[in-house]
């Protein structure tokens, strides 16, 4: 589903984002990307959407080699990768319903499909009652649910989330985690960046740890911190 082969990312100012990173994520997995600030987590996420290109190596998503993909084809890759943002990025002048429907409209989905799909997704994320509200009338957790609904509405095979709970309190973060786990159970592959020790330790899922652009740990059912004794 996702494969990094000896991927190196170098930014304009010669700063190394990732160095010879290789890993493989299978369909249906839930993977945490952890590591100190500047470790290269966001760089890894941005490679998946083609937002940045690797200096060397291959990034393969859904059978598509992203680094050699023509810019013209990039939109079609992005339809198979849903993105959840830390800061939600909802359109303030559109209602909850319109924000989610917008994601379908702009990929030219049929009206009929939009009318059918949006309410289904809103009920999945537990927001059926708030469809007519505007983002500034919602709590942070609710806004993040809208963002997740928007990421899901085009039925992507993969959902990537860069610190989706970063702006939420612990309790709300837990609820968002439950939702993401639920979505994962339904078959969507999820890659999530987090700094929350509690979330990772509670979930007991695969953990890929980066330090200074290098993979230092890749552990099934791992915890947040590198085990000192191991």
């Amino acid at each position, binding site marked *: 589903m996702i494969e990094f082969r000896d991927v190196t990312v170098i930014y304009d100012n010669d700063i190394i984002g990732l160095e010879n990173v290789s890993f493989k994520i299978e369909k249906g997995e839930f993977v945490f990307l952890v590591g100190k600030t500047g470790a290269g987590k966001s760089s890894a996420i941005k490679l998946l959407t083609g*937002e940045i290109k690797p200096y060397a190596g291959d990034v393969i998503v859904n059978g598509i080699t992203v680094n050699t993909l023509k810019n013209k084809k990039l939109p079609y890759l992005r339809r198979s990768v849903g993105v959840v943002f830390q800061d939600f*990025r909802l359109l303030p002048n559109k209602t909850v319903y319109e924000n989610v429907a*917008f994601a379908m409209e*702009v990929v030219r989905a049929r009206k009929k499909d939009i009318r059918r799909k949006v309410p289904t997704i809103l009920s999945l994320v537990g927001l059926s009652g708030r469809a007519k509200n505007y983002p500034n009338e919602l709590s942070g957790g609710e806004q993040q649910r809208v963002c997740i609904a928007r990421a899901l509405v085009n039925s992507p095979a993969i959902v990537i989330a860069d610190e989706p709970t970063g702006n939420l309190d612990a309790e709300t973060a837990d609820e968002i985690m439950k939702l993401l786990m639920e979505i994962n159970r339904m078959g969507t592959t999820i890659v999530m960046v987090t700094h929350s020790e509690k979330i990772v330790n509670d979930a007991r899922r695969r953990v890929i740890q980066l330090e200074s652009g290098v993979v230092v740990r890749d552990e099934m059912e791992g915890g947040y911190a590198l085990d000192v004794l191991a």
Partner: protein
Amino acid sequence: MYSLKTAFSSLGRNAVMTVASIVTIACCLFLFGVFLLFAFNINYIGEQISSQCELQAFIDDAATPADEERILKEISALPNVKSAEFESKEQAFENYKAQLGMEYSESFEGMSGSDILRSSVKIVPDDLTLVKQTELAAKSVRGVARVVNREDIILKVVSATDIIKFGSLIAMLILLITAVFIIQNTIKLSVHAREEEIHIMKFVGATDGFIRRPFVLEGVIVGVIGASIAIVIIAFGYNMAVGGVTEFLDVFKLYSFSQLALPVSGGLMLFGIIMGSLGSRSAIRRHLKV
């Protein structure tokens, strides 16, 4: 549908800028139209002049009518001769009298063409730039005494129209670039107002073409409205201006607007649309890179 709705709401939101850019486009296209009309008429006048301009080959007094016929034939057969017309002494005399006007007609009493004038062949050349060669060729026809060439005037007219056309072209180009720049800045405002939206569209997989469309449409709408205003002003203004000019200058005929309406308004509309879409495209280009 999405595009059209978005385009109009953007135009409404930036009403002041929209009006400003429509006015600017209208001005640019108005001037463009004036240049076009000017160029068309200069061309037309040039045509009229060159059809009036001629070489005149005077025939030796000793020539018989048979000679005259042969000379006309030979000259007609020369290269670069559009038409050749024989003018007898009598005709020349009549023309001459007519040119001088009635008040002098008495002084010609008792005279006839054969006393003072020669018969000639009037030659209208095809290509004015080759008129020198034609002159030499006509001179070498047997029985031709002298060839008079009004080349200086002709060439002056030709080069004057060339300079005017070239100058208009440059001025037009500068105006058009200015107009594109202004549309670009108007659309940049709309792009800026919808940056977040564009960003999200990119992330959920909208194609660049889809994202660009409402902005291009916005630019095209501005271009079309501007062009329409310019066309209306020109249509009213032109016939008035032509009326004024013709009072002083009735030697030459000028086009009426209806003769030029199609090419001129078509040209303005086309330019309005092209400028609108060019301006929009360049305004949004940077934002599509994510």
